[in-house]
Protein backbone atom coordinates (compact mmCIF):
# COMPACT_ATOMS: atom_id res chain seq x y z
CA UNK A 1 0.00 0.00 0.00
CA UNK A 2 1.46 3.38 -0.89
CA UNK A 3 1.44 6.04 1.82
CA UNK A 4 -1.42 8.47 1.28
CA UNK A 5 -1.02 12.10 2.23
CA UNK A 6 -2.61 13.14 5.50
CA UNK A 7 -6.27 13.90 5.46
CA UNK A 8 -7.22 17.51 6.18
CA UNK A 9 -10.47 16.90 8.04
CA UNK A 10 -10.22 15.85 11.68
CA UNK A 11 -12.02 12.52 11.98
CA UNK A 12 -10.56 9.79 14.12
CA UNK A 13 -10.88 7.36 11.26
CA UNK A 14 -9.23 4.40 12.94
CA UNK A 15 -11.58 4.62 15.90
CA UNK A 16 -14.60 5.00 13.61
CA UNK A 17 -13.58 2.05 11.47
CA UNK A 18 -13.35 -0.08 14.58
CA UNK A 19 -17.08 0.52 15.04
CA UNK A 20 -17.74 -1.49 11.86
CA UNK A 21 -16.87 -5.15 12.46
CA UNK A 22 -17.27 -6.10 8.80
CA UNK A 23 -14.53 -3.71 7.68
CA UNK A 24 -11.75 -5.51 9.51
CA UNK A 25 -11.89 -8.67 7.42
CA UNK A 26 -9.73 -9.75 4.53
CA UNK A 27 -11.19 -10.57 1.14
CA UNK A 28 -9.14 -12.74 -1.18
CA UNK A 29 -6.21 -12.30 1.15
CA UNK A 30 -6.31 -8.49 1.10
CA UNK A 31 -7.77 -6.05 3.60
CA UNK A 32 -11.31 -5.22 2.52
CA UNK A 33 -11.72 -1.81 0.88
CA UNK A 34 -15.48 -1.40 0.79
CA UNK A 35 -16.26 1.13 -1.92
CA UNK A 36 -19.83 0.07 -2.70
CA UNK A 37 -21.60 2.23 -0.16
CA UNK A 38 -24.01 3.61 -2.75
CA UNK A 39 -25.50 0.12 -3.09
CA UNK A 40 -25.59 -0.48 0.65
CA UNK A 41 -23.59 0.95 3.55
CA UNK A 42 -22.19 -1.12 6.40
CA UNK A 43 -23.60 -1.16 9.92
CA UNK A 44 -21.80 -0.03 13.06
CA UNK A 45 -21.91 -2.11 16.23
CA UNK A 46 -24.33 0.39 17.74
CA UNK A 47 -26.93 -0.59 15.13
CA UNK A 48 -26.27 -4.31 15.39
CA UNK A 49 -26.56 -4.09 19.18
CA UNK A 50 -29.73 -2.02 19.09
CA UNK A 51 -31.44 -4.64 16.91
CA UNK A 52 -30.18 -7.37 19.16
CA UNK A 53 -31.23 -5.60 22.34
CA UNK A 54 -34.68 -5.18 20.85
CA UNK A 55 -34.89 -8.90 20.10
CA UNK A 56 -33.52 -9.87 23.50
CA UNK A 57 -35.57 -7.58 25.69
CA UNK A 58 -38.50 -5.92 23.91
CA UNK A 59 -39.93 -7.94 21.08
CA UNK A 60 -43.67 -8.50 20.78
CA UNK A 61 -46.18 -7.14 18.30
CA UNK A 62 -46.73 -3.39 18.29
CA UNK A 63 -49.95 -1.48 18.91
CA UNK A 64 -51.88 -4.61 19.92
CA UNK A 65 -51.15 -6.19 23.28
CA UNK A 66 -51.87 -4.98 26.76
CA UNK A 67 -48.90 -6.87 28.11
CA UNK A 68 -45.57 -5.34 29.04
CA UNK A 69 -43.52 -6.52 26.09
CA UNK A 70 -46.06 -5.30 23.58
CA UNK A 71 -45.94 -1.93 25.26
CA UNK A 72 -42.13 -1.92 25.16
CA UNK A 73 -42.08 -2.85 21.49
CA UNK A 74 -44.64 -0.15 20.73
CA UNK A 75 -42.66 2.43 22.67
CA UNK A 76 -39.42 1.49 20.91
CA UNK A 77 -41.08 1.56 17.50
CA UNK A 78 -42.71 4.94 18.10
CA UNK A 79 -39.51 6.34 19.62
CA UNK A 80 -37.76 5.34 16.40
CA UNK A 81 -40.38 7.24 14.44
CA UNK A 82 -39.80 10.32 16.57
CA UNK A 83 -36.04 9.94 16.03
CA UNK A 84 -36.57 9.92 12.26
CA UNK A 85 -38.88 12.94 12.52
CA UNK A 86 -36.21 14.90 14.36
CA UNK A 87 -33.53 13.84 11.85
CA UNK A 88 -35.47 15.02 8.81
CA UNK A 89 -37.26 17.91 10.57
CA UNK A 90 -40.78 16.79 9.79
CA UNK A 91 -43.48 18.74 11.61
CA UNK A 92 -45.03 15.68 13.19
CA UNK A 93 -44.62 11.91 13.43
CA UNK A 94 -47.88 11.69 11.49
CA UNK A 95 -45.73 12.60 8.49
CA UNK A 96 -43.26 9.72 8.99
CA UNK A 97 -44.35 6.41 7.47
CA UNK A 98 -42.22 3.32 7.83
CA UNK A 99 -41.86 1.27 4.63
CA UNK A 100 -39.45 -1.38 3.52
CA UNK A 101 -37.34 1.10 1.63
CA UNK A 102 -37.20 3.80 -1.00
CA UNK A 103 -38.82 1.56 -3.59
CA UNK A 104 -41.85 0.87 -1.45
CA UNK A 105 -42.11 4.53 -0.45
CA UNK A 106 -42.28 5.61 -4.08
CA UNK A 107 -44.76 2.88 -4.96
CA UNK A 108 -46.95 4.01 -2.09
CA UNK A 109 -47.10 7.52 -3.54
CA UNK A 110 -47.72 6.16 -7.03
CA UNK A 111 -50.67 4.11 -5.82
CA UNK A 112 -52.29 6.26 -3.21
CA UNK A 113 -51.46 9.75 -4.31
CA UNK A 114 -51.02 9.68 -8.03
CA UNK A 115 -53.34 7.05 -9.46
CA UNK A 116 -56.57 8.36 -7.98
CA UNK A 117 -55.75 11.88 -9.16
CA UNK A 118 -54.75 11.51 -12.78
CA UNK A 119 -56.80 11.42 -15.93
CA UNK A 120 -55.70 10.32 -19.38
CA UNK A 121 -53.29 12.91 -20.75
CA UNK A 122 -52.17 14.18 -17.34
CA UNK A 123 -48.42 14.20 -16.87
CA UNK A 124 -45.76 13.04 -14.41
CA UNK A 125 -42.38 14.71 -14.78
CA UNK A 126 -39.15 12.89 -13.91
CA UNK A 127 -35.54 13.21 -15.17
CA UNK A 128 -33.13 11.09 -17.22
CA UNK A 129 -31.09 10.47 -14.07
CA UNK A 130 -33.60 8.36 -12.21
CA UNK A 131 -33.07 4.98 -10.62
CA UNK A 132 -35.52 2.39 -11.95
CA UNK A 133 -37.36 2.69 -8.61
CA UNK A 134 -38.33 6.22 -9.64
CA UNK A 135 -39.27 5.26 -13.21
CA UNK A 136 -41.15 2.00 -13.22
CA UNK A 137 -43.83 2.84 -10.59
CA UNK A 138 -44.77 5.86 -12.74
CA UNK A 139 -44.78 3.79 -15.93
CA UNK A 140 -47.14 1.33 -14.25
CA UNK A 141 -49.35 4.20 -13.10
CA UNK A 142 -49.35 5.62 -16.62
CA UNK A 143 -50.34 2.27 -18.08
CA UNK A 144 -53.19 1.98 -15.63
CA UNK A 145 -54.51 5.52 -16.02
CA UNK A 146 -53.55 6.85 -19.44
CA UNK A 147 -51.29 9.46 -17.87
CA UNK A 148 -48.07 10.35 -19.68
CA UNK A 149 -44.51 10.18 -18.35
CA UNK A 150 -42.36 13.19 -19.26
CA UNK A 151 -38.60 13.07 -18.84
CA UNK A 152 -36.42 16.15 -18.36
CA UNK A 153 -33.08 15.85 -20.18
CA UNK A 154 -29.56 15.99 -18.78
CA UNK A 155 -26.37 17.24 -20.37
CA UNK A 156 -23.10 15.45 -21.04
CA UNK A 157 -21.80 16.20 -17.57
CA UNK A 158 -24.84 14.53 -16.09
CA UNK A 159 -26.45 17.78 -14.96
CA UNK A 160 -30.16 18.42 -15.23
CA UNK A 161 -31.15 20.89 -17.94
CA UNK A 162 -33.20 23.15 -15.70
CA UNK A 163 -34.58 25.24 -18.58
CA UNK A 164 -35.85 22.13 -20.30
CA UNK A 165 -37.28 20.98 -16.98
CA UNK A 166 -39.12 24.28 -16.62
CA UNK A 167 -40.43 24.02 -20.16
CA UNK A 168 -41.74 20.51 -19.53
CA UNK A 169 -43.78 21.62 -16.52
CA UNK A 170 -47.26 22.11 -17.89
CA UNK A 171 -50.86 22.61 -16.88
CA UNK A 172 -51.21 18.85 -17.07
CA UNK A 173 -48.30 18.04 -14.72
CA UNK A 174 -49.69 16.34 -11.62
CA UNK A 175 -46.44 15.35 -9.92
CA UNK A 176 -42.72 15.97 -10.21
CA UNK A 177 -40.58 13.04 -9.02
CA UNK A 178 -36.80 13.39 -9.11
CA UNK A 179 -33.71 12.04 -7.45
CA UNK A 180 -32.00 14.25 -4.88
CA UNK A 181 -28.68 12.61 -5.82
CA UNK A 182 -28.11 10.37 -8.86
CA UNK A 183 -26.84 6.94 -7.87
CA UNK A 184 -25.26 6.29 -11.27
CA UNK A 185 -23.42 9.58 -11.83
CA UNK A 186 -23.29 11.24 -8.42
CA UNK A 187 -25.00 14.43 -9.59
CA UNK A 188 -26.65 16.47 -6.83
CA UNK A 189 -29.83 17.82 -8.37
CA UNK A 190 -30.89 21.44 -7.80
CA UNK A 191 -33.81 20.33 -5.65
CA UNK A 192 -34.61 23.76 -4.22
CA UNK A 193 -35.06 25.18 -7.71
CA UNK A 194 -37.03 22.10 -8.76
CA UNK A 195 -39.40 22.49 -5.83
CA UNK A 196 -39.77 26.24 -6.39
CA UNK A 197 -40.51 25.81 -10.11
CA UNK A 198 -43.01 23.03 -9.49
CA UNK A 199 -44.75 24.81 -6.64
CA UNK A 200 -45.04 27.98 -8.70
CA UNK A 201 -47.36 25.90 -10.89
CA UNK A 202 -49.05 24.19 -7.98
CA UNK A 203 -47.37 20.84 -8.68
CA UNK A 204 -46.29 18.67 -5.72
CA UNK A 205 -42.78 17.20 -5.64
CA UNK A 206 -41.49 13.80 -4.55
CA UNK A 207 -37.74 13.52 -3.94
CA UNK A 208 -35.97 10.16 -4.10
CA UNK A 209 -33.45 10.67 -1.32
CA UNK A 210 -31.92 7.18 -1.33
CA UNK A 211 -28.47 8.52 -2.26
CA UNK A 212 -28.70 11.86 -0.48
CA UNK A 213 -29.67 10.79 3.01
CA UNK A 214 -26.22 9.48 4.08
CA UNK A 215 -24.44 12.58 2.84
CA UNK A 216 -26.36 15.74 3.75
CA UNK A 217 -28.45 17.03 6.61
CA UNK A 218 -32.09 16.99 5.55
CA UNK A 219 -34.74 19.51 6.51
CA UNK A 220 -37.95 18.66 4.71
CA UNK A 221 -39.59 21.88 5.86
CA UNK A 222 -36.78 24.09 4.55
CA UNK A 223 -36.68 22.05 1.34
CA UNK A 224 -40.48 22.33 1.15
CA UNK A 225 -40.82 19.04 -0.76
CA UNK A 226 -44.11 17.16 -0.52
CA UNK A 227 -42.74 13.63 -0.33
CA UNK A 228 -39.25 12.37 0.50
CA UNK A 229 -38.26 8.69 0.24
CA UNK A 230 -35.19 6.93 1.64
CA UNK A 231 -33.82 3.55 2.78
CA UNK A 232 -32.26 2.59 6.11
CA UNK A 233 -29.57 0.39 4.59
CA UNK A 234 -27.90 3.28 2.79
CA UNK A 235 -27.71 5.20 6.07
CA UNK A 236 -25.68 2.58 7.98
CA UNK A 237 -28.95 1.07 9.20
CA UNK A 238 -30.69 -2.26 8.63
CA UNK A 239 -32.06 -3.48 5.31
CA UNK A 240 -35.80 -3.92 4.97
CA UNK A 241 -36.69 -0.60 6.60
CA UNK A 242 -37.21 2.77 4.97
CA UNK A 243 -39.20 5.93 5.27
CA UNK A 244 -41.72 7.93 3.36
CA UNK A 245 -42.03 11.49 4.54
CA UNK A 246 -45.25 13.09 3.31
CA UNK A 247 -46.83 16.47 3.87
CA UNK A 248 -49.65 15.81 6.30
CA UNK A 249 -52.39 17.49 4.28
CA UNK A 250 -51.55 15.31 1.28
CA UNK A 251 -51.29 12.11 3.30
CA UNK A 252 -54.66 12.90 4.87
CA UNK A 253 -56.26 13.16 1.47
CA UNK A 254 -54.85 9.84 0.24
CA UNK A 255 -56.59 6.47 0.50
CA UNK A 256 -54.64 3.61 2.10
CA UNK A 257 -52.67 1.50 -0.34
CA UNK A 258 -52.59 -1.84 1.43
CA UNK A 259 -55.26 -3.22 3.69
CA UNK A 260 -54.80 -5.28 6.81
CA UNK A 261 -54.21 -5.04 10.52
CA UNK A 262 -52.98 -1.83 12.15
CA UNK A 263 -54.30 0.42 9.41
CA UNK A 264 -57.90 0.29 10.62
CA UNK A 265 -59.90 1.64 13.51
CA UNK A 266 -62.83 -0.69 13.06
CA UNK A 267 -63.81 -3.30 10.54
CA UNK A 268 -67.27 -4.52 9.78
CA UNK A 269 -68.82 -5.87 6.62
CA UNK A 270 -70.87 -2.72 6.43
CA UNK A 271 -67.69 -0.67 6.16
CA UNK A 272 -64.25 -0.13 7.59
CA UNK A 273 -62.88 2.95 9.26
CA UNK A 274 -59.24 3.61 8.55
CA UNK A 275 -56.76 4.41 11.24
CA UNK A 276 -55.21 7.85 11.48
CA UNK A 277 -51.82 8.86 10.19
CA UNK A 278 -49.27 7.42 9.97
CA UNK A 279 -50.81 4.00 10.73
CA UNK A 280 -53.22 4.28 7.81
CA UNK A 281 -50.28 3.47 5.54
CA UNK A 282 -48.70 0.74 7.67
CA UNK A 283 -50.81 -2.35 7.15
CA UNK A 284 -49.59 -5.49 8.88
CA UNK A 285 -46.81 -6.12 11.37
CA UNK A 286 -44.02 -3.68 10.59
CA UNK A 287 -40.25 -4.23 10.69
CA UNK A 288 -39.88 -3.26 14.34
CA UNK A 289 -36.27 -4.25 14.93
CA UNK A 290 -35.43 -2.51 11.67
CA UNK A 291 -36.99 0.74 12.85
CA UNK A 292 -35.09 0.48 16.14
CA UNK A 293 -31.87 -0.17 14.22
CA UNK A 294 -32.54 2.78 11.93
CA UNK A 295 -32.95 5.07 14.94
CA UNK A 296 -29.61 3.81 16.27
CA UNK A 297 -28.00 4.51 12.90
CA UNK A 298 -29.33 8.05 13.00
CA UNK A 299 -27.95 8.51 16.51
CA UNK A 300 -24.61 7.23 15.29
CA UNK A 301 -24.47 9.52 12.27
CA UNK A 302 -25.61 12.52 14.30
CA UNK A 303 -22.95 11.89 16.92
CA UNK A 304 -20.26 12.18 14.24
CA UNK A 305 -22.08 15.08 12.61
CA UNK A 306 -23.29 15.17 9.04
CA UNK A 307 -21.24 18.32 8.45
CA UNK A 308 -18.02 16.53 9.32
CA UNK A 309 -19.11 13.50 7.31
CA UNK A 310 -19.79 15.75 4.32
CA UNK A 311 -16.38 17.45 4.63
CA UNK A 312 -14.55 14.13 4.85
CA UNK A 313 -16.45 12.69 1.89
CA UNK A 314 -15.87 15.84 -0.17
CA UNK A 315 -12.15 15.32 0.33
CA UNK A 316 -12.43 11.65 -0.68
CA UNK A 317 -14.35 12.62 -3.80
CA UNK A 318 -11.80 15.19 -4.82
CA UNK A 319 -8.90 12.87 -4.07
CA UNK A 320 -10.46 9.99 -6.00
CA UNK A 321 -11.37 12.20 -8.95
CA UNK A 322 -7.80 13.48 -9.20
CA UNK A 323 -6.22 10.05 -8.74
CA UNK A 324 -8.46 8.28 -11.23
CA UNK A 325 -8.24 11.05 -13.81
CA UNK A 326 -4.47 10.48 -13.92
CA UNK A 327 -4.99 6.96 -15.23
CA UNK A 328 -4.48 6.80 -18.95
CA UNK A 329 -7.49 5.35 -20.82
CA UNK A 330 -9.82 6.04 -17.88
CA UNK A 331 -12.82 8.30 -18.36
CA UNK A 332 -14.99 9.56 -15.52
CA UNK A 333 -18.69 9.31 -16.35
CA UNK A 334 -20.63 12.05 -14.57
CA UNK A 335 -18.78 15.32 -14.12
CA UNK A 336 -21.42 17.57 -12.61
CA UNK A 337 -20.15 20.55 -10.60
CA UNK A 338 -22.04 19.41 -7.55
CA UNK A 339 -21.51 15.70 -6.84
CA UNK A 340 -21.93 13.35 -3.92
CA UNK A 341 -19.00 11.11 -3.04
CA UNK A 342 -19.07 8.61 -5.85
CA UNK A 343 -17.15 8.20 -9.08
CA UNK A 344 -18.45 6.26 -12.09
CA UNK A 345 -15.83 5.46 -14.70
CA UNK A 346 -14.94 3.38 -17.73
CA UNK A 347 -11.55 2.18 -18.93
CA UNK A 348 -10.98 1.84 -22.67
CA UNK A 349 -10.63 -1.81 -23.63
CA UNK A 350 -11.75 -3.24 -20.29
CA UNK A 351 -15.36 -4.06 -19.56
CA UNK A 352 -16.52 -2.71 -16.16
CA UNK A 353 -17.45 -6.21 -15.09
CA UNK A 354 -13.90 -7.39 -15.61
CA UNK A 355 -12.65 -4.42 -13.61
CA UNK A 356 -15.02 -5.44 -10.83
CA UNK A 357 -13.75 -9.01 -10.76
CA UNK A 358 -10.10 -7.95 -10.82
CA UNK A 359 -10.65 -5.37 -8.07
CA UNK A 360 -12.35 -8.04 -5.98
CA UNK A 361 -9.17 -10.09 -6.23
CA UNK A 362 -7.46 -7.08 -4.62
CA UNK A 363 -10.04 -7.00 -1.83
CA UNK A 364 -11.75 -3.93 -3.28
CA UNK A 365 -15.56 -3.94 -3.54
CA UNK A 366 -17.12 -1.70 -6.19
CA UNK A 367 -20.32 -1.84 -8.22
CA UNK A 368 -20.34 -2.46 -11.95
CA UNK A 369 -23.14 -2.39 -14.49
CA UNK A 370 -25.93 0.05 -15.19
CA UNK A 371 -26.71 0.69 -11.51
CA UNK A 372 -30.46 0.30 -12.05
CA UNK A 373 -30.36 3.54 -14.02
CA UNK A 374 -30.24 2.30 -17.60
CA UNK A 375 -31.48 5.51 -19.24
CA UNK A 376 -28.82 7.64 -17.52
CA UNK A 377 -26.00 5.22 -18.34
CA UNK A 378 -27.15 4.84 -21.93
CA UNK A 379 -27.42 8.61 -22.28
CA UNK A 380 -23.76 8.86 -21.32
CA UNK A 381 -23.02 6.59 -24.28
CA UNK A 382 -21.70 3.56 -22.41
CA UNK A 383 -23.30 0.16 -21.74
CA UNK A 384 -22.10 0.06 -18.14
CA UNK A 385 -19.69 1.72 -15.73
CA UNK A 386 -17.57 0.83 -12.73
CA UNK A 387 -18.59 2.85 -9.68
CA UNK A 388 -16.70 3.52 -6.47
CA UNK A 389 -18.92 5.11 -3.83
CA UNK A 390 -17.47 6.37 -0.58
CA UNK A 391 -18.55 6.57 3.03
CA UNK A 392 -16.92 8.48 5.88
CA UNK A 393 -15.09 5.30 6.92
CA UNK A 394 -13.16 5.19 3.66
CA UNK A 395 -9.67 6.58 3.38
CA UNK A 396 -7.28 8.08 0.88
CA UNK A 397 -5.15 4.95 1.27
CA UNK A 398 -8.06 2.86 0.00
CA UNK A 399 -8.39 5.17 -2.98
CA UNK A 400 -4.69 4.68 -3.71
CA UNK A 401 -5.31 0.94 -3.73
CA UNK A 402 -8.29 1.45 -6.03
CA UNK A 403 -6.19 3.43 -8.50
CA UNK A 404 -3.36 0.88 -8.42
CA UNK A 405 -5.76 -2.01 -9.00
CA UNK A 406 -7.49 -0.23 -11.89
CA UNK A 407 -4.07 0.32 -13.47
CA UNK A 408 -3.22 -3.33 -13.16
CA UNK A 409 -6.58 -4.29 -14.72
CA UNK A 410 -5.89 -1.97 -17.63
CA UNK A 411 -2.40 -3.38 -18.11
CA UNK A 412 -3.68 -6.93 -18.04
CA UNK A 413 -5.98 -6.23 -20.99
CA UNK A 414 -3.44 -4.32 -23.04
Amino acid at each position, binding site marked *: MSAAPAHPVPLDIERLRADFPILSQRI*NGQPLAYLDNGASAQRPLAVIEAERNYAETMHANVHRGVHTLSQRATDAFEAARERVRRFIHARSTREVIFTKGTTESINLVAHSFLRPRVKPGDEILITWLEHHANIVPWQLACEATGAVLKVAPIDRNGELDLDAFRALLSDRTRLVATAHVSNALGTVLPVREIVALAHARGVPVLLDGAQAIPHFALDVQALDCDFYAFSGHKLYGPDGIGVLYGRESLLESMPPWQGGGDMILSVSFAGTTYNQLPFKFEAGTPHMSGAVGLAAAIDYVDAIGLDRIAAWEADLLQYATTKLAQIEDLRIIGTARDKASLVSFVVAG*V*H*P*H*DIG*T*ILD*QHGIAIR*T*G*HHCAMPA*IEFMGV*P*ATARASFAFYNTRAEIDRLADAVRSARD*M*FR
Partner: protein
Amino acid sequence: MDLKDLSRDVILDHNKRPRNFGRLEPPAHEARGHNPLCGDQLTVYAVLEGDVVKDVRFDGSGCAISVASASLMTEAVKGKTRAEAEHLYAAIHDLLTRADAPSLPELGKLAALGGVREFPARVKCASLCWHTLHAALEGAAAPVSTE
Protein backbone atom coordinates in the same frame (compact mmCIF):
# COMPACT_ATOMS: atom_id res chain seq x y z
CA MET B 1 -8.30 -12.34 -12.79
CA ASP B 2 -6.65 -15.10 -10.91
CA LEU B 3 -7.58 -17.80 -13.35
CA LYS B 4 -4.77 -20.21 -13.98
CA ASP B 5 -2.31 -18.54 -16.29
CA LEU B 6 -3.00 -20.68 -19.32
CA SER B 7 -6.75 -20.24 -19.23
CA ARG B 8 -6.29 -16.58 -18.45
CA ASP B 9 -4.19 -16.16 -21.55
CA VAL B 10 -6.78 -17.97 -23.65
CA ILE B 11 -9.54 -15.71 -22.34
CA LEU B 12 -7.53 -12.52 -22.80
CA ASP B 13 -6.55 -13.56 -26.30
CA HIS B 14 -10.10 -14.41 -27.40
CA ASN B 15 -11.37 -11.19 -25.83
CA LYS B 16 -8.87 -9.11 -27.72
CA ARG B 17 -9.15 -10.99 -31.02
CA PRO B 18 -12.54 -12.64 -31.04
CA ARG B 19 -12.83 -15.32 -33.73
CA ASN B 20 -15.83 -15.45 -36.05
CA PHE B 21 -16.86 -11.96 -35.01
CA GLY B 22 -19.43 -10.40 -37.31
CA ARG B 23 -22.89 -10.99 -38.66
CA LEU B 24 -24.42 -13.44 -41.10
CA GLU B 25 -27.36 -12.37 -43.23
CA PRO B 26 -30.63 -14.27 -43.37
CA PRO B 27 -31.47 -17.03 -44.06
CA ALA B 28 -28.91 -17.64 -41.27
CA HIS B 29 -30.67 -18.28 -37.99
CA GLU B 30 -30.05 -15.63 -35.39
CA ALA B 31 -30.88 -15.01 -31.75
CA ARG B 32 -30.13 -12.18 -29.38
CA GLY B 33 -28.91 -12.67 -25.84
CA HIS B 34 -28.84 -10.09 -23.08
CA ASN B 35 -27.37 -10.16 -19.61
CA PRO B 36 -29.10 -7.29 -17.80
CA LEU B 37 -26.68 -7.45 -14.90
CA CYS B 38 -23.66 -6.47 -16.99
CA GLY B 39 -25.37 -4.98 -19.99
CA ASP B 40 -23.83 -7.67 -22.22
CA GLN B 41 -25.56 -7.93 -25.59
CA LEU B 42 -24.74 -10.73 -28.00
CA THR B 43 -26.24 -11.85 -31.25
CA VAL B 44 -25.38 -15.32 -32.48
CA TYR B 45 -25.83 -16.22 -36.16
CA ALA B 46 -25.81 -19.80 -37.40
CA VAL B 47 -26.13 -21.35 -40.84
CA LEU B 48 -27.33 -24.92 -40.86
CA GLU B 49 -26.76 -27.27 -43.74
CA GLY B 50 -28.92 -30.23 -43.06
CA ASP B 51 -28.06 -31.00 -39.51
CA VAL B 52 -24.59 -29.52 -39.57
CA VAL B 53 -23.62 -26.08 -38.26
CA LYS B 54 -21.99 -24.88 -41.44
CA ASP B 55 -21.09 -21.41 -40.19
CA VAL B 56 -21.51 -19.53 -36.95
CA ARG B 57 -20.67 -15.98 -35.94
CA PHE B 58 -21.46 -13.54 -33.21
CA ASP B 59 -21.39 -9.83 -32.59
CA GLY B 60 -22.28 -7.44 -29.81
CA SER B 61 -20.47 -6.16 -26.77
CA GLY B 62 -19.69 -7.60 -23.41
CA CYS B 63 -17.12 -8.35 -20.77
CA ALA B 64 -14.00 -10.39 -21.47
CA ILE B 65 -15.55 -13.60 -20.24
CA SER B 66 -18.64 -13.31 -22.40
CA VAL B 67 -16.72 -12.31 -25.52
CA ALA B 68 -14.05 -14.98 -25.06
CA SER B 69 -16.67 -17.61 -24.34
CA ALA B 70 -18.59 -16.71 -27.49
CA SER B 71 -15.42 -16.73 -29.55
CA LEU B 72 -14.39 -20.14 -28.21
CA MET B 73 -17.89 -21.42 -28.77
CA THR B 74 -17.94 -20.48 -32.43
CA GLU B 75 -14.67 -22.30 -32.98
CA ALA B 76 -15.93 -25.34 -31.15
CA VAL B 77 -19.30 -25.79 -32.84
CA LYS B 78 -18.43 -24.97 -36.42
CA GLY B 79 -18.77 -28.14 -38.46
CA LYS B 80 -20.51 -30.03 -35.68
CA THR B 81 -24.00 -31.48 -35.90
CA ARG B 82 -26.78 -29.93 -33.88
CA ALA B 83 -26.72 -32.91 -31.55
CA GLU B 84 -22.99 -32.48 -30.98
CA ALA B 85 -23.47 -28.77 -30.33
CA GLU B 86 -26.22 -29.50 -27.83
CA HIS B 87 -23.96 -32.04 -26.16
CA LEU B 88 -21.25 -29.38 -25.79
CA TYR B 89 -23.85 -26.97 -24.42
CA ALA B 90 -24.64 -29.48 -21.66
CA ALA B 91 -20.95 -30.19 -21.02
CA ILE B 92 -20.18 -26.46 -20.71
CA HIS B 93 -23.06 -26.01 -18.33
CA ASP B 94 -21.58 -28.72 -16.09
CA LEU B 95 -18.10 -27.29 -16.42
CA LEU B 96 -19.31 -23.87 -15.28
CA THR B 97 -21.48 -25.00 -12.42
CA ARG B 98 -20.18 -28.30 -11.00
CA ALA B 99 -16.92 -28.60 -9.13
CA ASP B 100 -16.88 -32.36 -9.86
CA ALA B 101 -17.51 -32.00 -13.58
CA PRO B 102 -15.36 -34.49 -15.52
CA SER B 103 -12.95 -32.80 -17.91
CA LEU B 104 -14.25 -34.19 -21.17
CA PRO B 105 -11.73 -34.40 -24.00
CA GLU B 106 -14.26 -33.07 -26.51
CA LEU B 107 -14.26 -29.73 -24.66
CA GLY B 108 -10.80 -28.96 -26.01
CA LYS B 109 -9.95 -25.27 -25.61
CA LEU B 110 -13.34 -24.66 -23.99
CA ALA B 111 -11.84 -26.13 -20.82
CA ALA B 112 -10.21 -22.73 -20.33
CA LEU B 113 -13.63 -21.55 -19.10
CA GLY B 114 -13.54 -23.95 -16.16
CA GLY B 115 -11.87 -21.34 -13.97
CA VAL B 116 -14.94 -19.12 -14.26
CA ARG B 117 -16.64 -21.49 -11.80
CA GLU B 118 -14.65 -19.77 -9.04
CA PHE B 119 -16.47 -16.52 -9.83
CA PRO B 120 -20.12 -17.41 -9.36
CA ALA B 121 -21.25 -13.93 -10.33
CA ARG B 122 -19.59 -14.41 -13.71
CA VAL B 123 -20.95 -17.80 -14.72
CA LYS B 124 -23.82 -16.16 -16.57
CA CYS B 125 -21.34 -14.15 -18.60
CA ALA B 126 -19.77 -17.37 -19.88
CA SER B 127 -23.04 -19.18 -20.50
CA LEU B 128 -24.93 -16.37 -22.26
CA CYS B 129 -23.57 -17.21 -25.72
CA TRP B 130 -24.47 -20.88 -25.33
CA HIS B 131 -28.06 -20.11 -24.37
CA THR B 132 -28.18 -17.75 -27.32
CA LEU B 133 -26.77 -20.33 -29.73
CA HIS B 134 -29.29 -22.82 -28.44
CA ALA B 135 -32.06 -20.33 -29.17
CA ALA B 136 -30.67 -19.61 -32.63
CA LEU B 137 -30.60 -23.30 -33.48
CA GLU B 138 -34.12 -23.72 -32.17
CA GLY B 139 -35.10 -20.71 -34.24
CA ALA B 140 -36.63 -19.10 -31.16
CA ALA B 141 -37.71 -15.55 -31.80
CA ALA B 142 -37.77 -14.08 -28.29
CA PRO B 143 -34.53 -12.52 -27.01
CA VAL B 144 -32.71 -14.62 -24.42
CA SER B 145 -32.08 -13.12 -21.03
CA THR B 146 -29.94 -14.47 -18.23
CA GLU B 147 -32.30 -13.08 -15.60
